[in-house]
C-alpha cells in the first residue's frame, strides 16, 4: 500500500507513477516527464533526480549520489523536489 501522505523524507523510496515515463525530447533537446494528459519539461537537475528514482534507492541514497556528482549537500533540495511531484501523484513512495 503506497504512502497516502505526500510528504517524503530521507528514508522514503521514491518511484515514478506506473503511468509516467521519462523521455528525452529531441525537438526541445530536453528531458520530459510524460503521463496521461500531462507533460513536465525537466531541467537537468530534475532529470538527474528522476533517473535515480528506481523504487529501490532511498532519497538519502539519491542525494548522496548527486551530492558527490555536484560536490554539495542536496538532500533538502531532492526531498523538496520529489515531494512536489508526489503531491501531484507523479512520484510514489515505495
Amino acid at each position, binding site marked *: *500500500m*503506497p*504512502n*497516502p501522505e*505526500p510528504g517524503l523524507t530521507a528514508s522514503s523510496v521514491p518511484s515514478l*507513477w*506506473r*503511468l509516467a*515515463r521519462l*523521455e528525452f*525530447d529531441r*525537438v*526541445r533537446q530536453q528531458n*520530459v516527464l*510524460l*503521463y*496521461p*494528459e*500531462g*507533460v*513536465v*519539461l525537466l531541467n537537468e537537475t530534475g532529470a538527474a533526480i528522476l533517473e535515480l528514482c528506481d523504487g529501490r534507492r532511498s532519497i538519502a541514497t539519491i542525494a548522496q549520489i548527486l551530492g558527490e556528482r555536484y560536490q554539495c549537500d542536496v538532500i533538502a533540495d531532492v526531498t523538496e523536489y520529489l515531494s512536489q511531484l508526489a503531491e501531484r*501523484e507523479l512520484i*510514489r513512495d515505495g
Partner: protein
Amino acid sequence: MTDNRPTTLLAELTHRCPLHCPYCSNPLALVGADRELTTDEWKRVFSEARDLGVLQLGLSGGEPLVRRDLEPLADHAHRLGLYTTLVTSGVGLTRRRATALRDAGLEHIQISIQDSDTETADRIAGMRAVPQKEEAVALVRELGFAFSINAVLHRANLDRIGDIIDLAGSMGADRLELANTQYYGWALANRTALLPTATQVAAADAIADEAKRRYRGRMQIVYVLPDYHESYPKPCYGGWGQVYIVVAPDGQTLPCHGATHITTLRFDNVRDRSLDWIWSDSPAFQAFRGDEWMHEPCRSCARKTIDFGGCRCQAFALTGDAANTDPVCTLAPLHGIIEQAVQEATGPEEYRYRYLKLEPVRS
C-alpha cells in the same frame, strides 16, 4: 512552461460512434466517413506534430475503434515516441484488437462510463453499452494497459458521483476523470436538460474532494469543474494556441475542440497546409494569442495571466464575440447569460441524442 511549442494533439479520427450521448462535445454538423483523413494523412499529421514538439497524442473521435486502421496509427505514434491515449467508449474493443493495440505499443486507454446505474447509463448512451464496456475494462486490465475511466457528469448522474467513483475504483482504474459537462456542440444544444443545480454541484464538489484524498496512491482523481457554477472561467489549455491542437476527422485544425463554434474565424486544414504553418502562422491560431485582443474588463484585470479571459469558444457561442470575457466569469458584463441558463435548467431531461445522419423521431 510554454515554450511556443504545442505539447498535445487531439486527433479526432472519426465522428462515427455507436453511442449517442447528448453531452458530446463534437459539433452538431458531424463529418461523414467519406471526408475522413486517410491512414497516410493521419500518419503525416502525427509526424509533423512530433517535429513541432507534441509529446501527448489523444486518439479520439467519435469512437476511434470504428477506424479499422487504428492499430497502424497507434504503431506509428509509438515509433515517434508519443505518449498515446486511446479515448474510447470501450464498444468494439475485442480481444484481437486490444492485443494488436498493445503490440503496437499503445500505452494508455481511457474508457468512458455514463453512470454507476446501468439503466441510466444506457439511457444516456442511447444504446445498451454497459456489458461491452465491462468486457473492455477486463481486457484493458488483463493486458496491462495504463487505464483511465472518464465519466461525464450532468444533472441526471451528478447525485451518484460517489457511486461512480467507487465503481471506477472497483474496476481497477489507475486514474479517473470526473468531467462536469462543458457546454459545446451537442452538450450546448442539450444544456437545459444537462445543467445541474447549484445544490447538486456543491454536494458533488465535496464528495469529489473527499474521494481524491481517500483514493490517493491508488487511483488518481481529476475533477473537471462545472464552469457555469464557478466564479471565474477555466484557463483553457493555458490559453489560445499555447499547447493544444485538435485535428478534426476531415483535417480541419483547431486550437480547441469547441472552436468550430467560432464562425468568424477560418480554420485551416492539414490537407492544404503543414501543421507547422497552421500552428505558427495561420490567422486563426494567432487570433487570441497574447492579450492585445482583449476587451475590458479582461484587459486591465489582474487575473488575465491566470485564466486569459476564459474560453474564446464559449465567449463566441454565448455572446457572439469571441473577444468578449467568457460570460462564466462573474466580472463579465454578460454574466447574466449564465445566471439565466442555470435558472432555466429545470424540468424533464429530454435529450436531443447525437446522430451522424438522421436523428430518429421521438415522441
